């Protein structure tokens, strides 16, 4: 990992199109500004990790369990629509 020390107002450039600027440092929090082309999505890492975890968990169904899971999901969704107590 490349490690760079930066102060408020200083920035780093990644490639020719991405600039990350340190806008504010306040105790444990750092405010960053990211300038990137529109086709590059910028996301907080923990969001990606939450989704990764869900993706892996959802895919982790044994062949034998899949039919049961499918039936249960179908039941839950159709029951929810039929009656809303």
């Amino acid at each position, binding site marked *: 990992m490349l490690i760079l020390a930066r102060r408020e107002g200083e920035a780093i450039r990644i490639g020719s199109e991405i600039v990350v600027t340190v806008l504010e440092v306040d105790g444990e929090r750092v405010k960053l500004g990211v300038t990137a082309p529109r086709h590059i999505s910028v996301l907080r890492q923990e*969001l990606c990790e939450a*989704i990764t975890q869900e993706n*892996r968990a959802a*895919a982790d169904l044994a062949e034998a369990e*899949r039919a049961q899971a*499918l039936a*249960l999901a179908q039941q839950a969704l159709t029951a*929810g629509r039929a009656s809303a107590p």
Partner: protein
Amino acid sequence: MMGQVETASAVKGFDLDIYFPEGLIGCEEWQHFVLEADPATAPVLVMRSLDEPAVSFLVTDPYLICPDYRFELGEADAAALEAASPDDVAVLCILNVQLSPSPPLPQRGEETEGEGVVITANLLGPLVIHKATGRARQVVLANSNYSAHHVVAGDRGADLEPAPLPAGREGG
């Protein structure tokens, strides 16, 4: 910015090859899937991996779970999908069915196998699919309050969720 995506009819008439150029989030190697819409299993569809035969997902229309589910499709996402309008795309969400989650506390006595089922939906990372081309992308609704682990059925799963905060704080 594109307009809001509203595609409640996503589940109907779907049976196609879909391609995630960047794979699923955290699973970049899973790119090619076939979406199987079997009327017998509606409104649940099976999204089966063509890259890895053991991998398949149960997916559904998120509007069935959360009737006011909506989001703005970001420019990066719209560009990746090559979508010109919200009408071009359909939205699905992945279901996670846990058949036997480990109970929070050890329980003595009776086995309650059937009641241990927890079904959650990933509303934070929906799948957006270009209806004409099958080009697809898992997007992250970064500025929403949607959960990656929205409980659809199963009390135990609800118990595991953190208690909701009170609606209003004192003094606003």
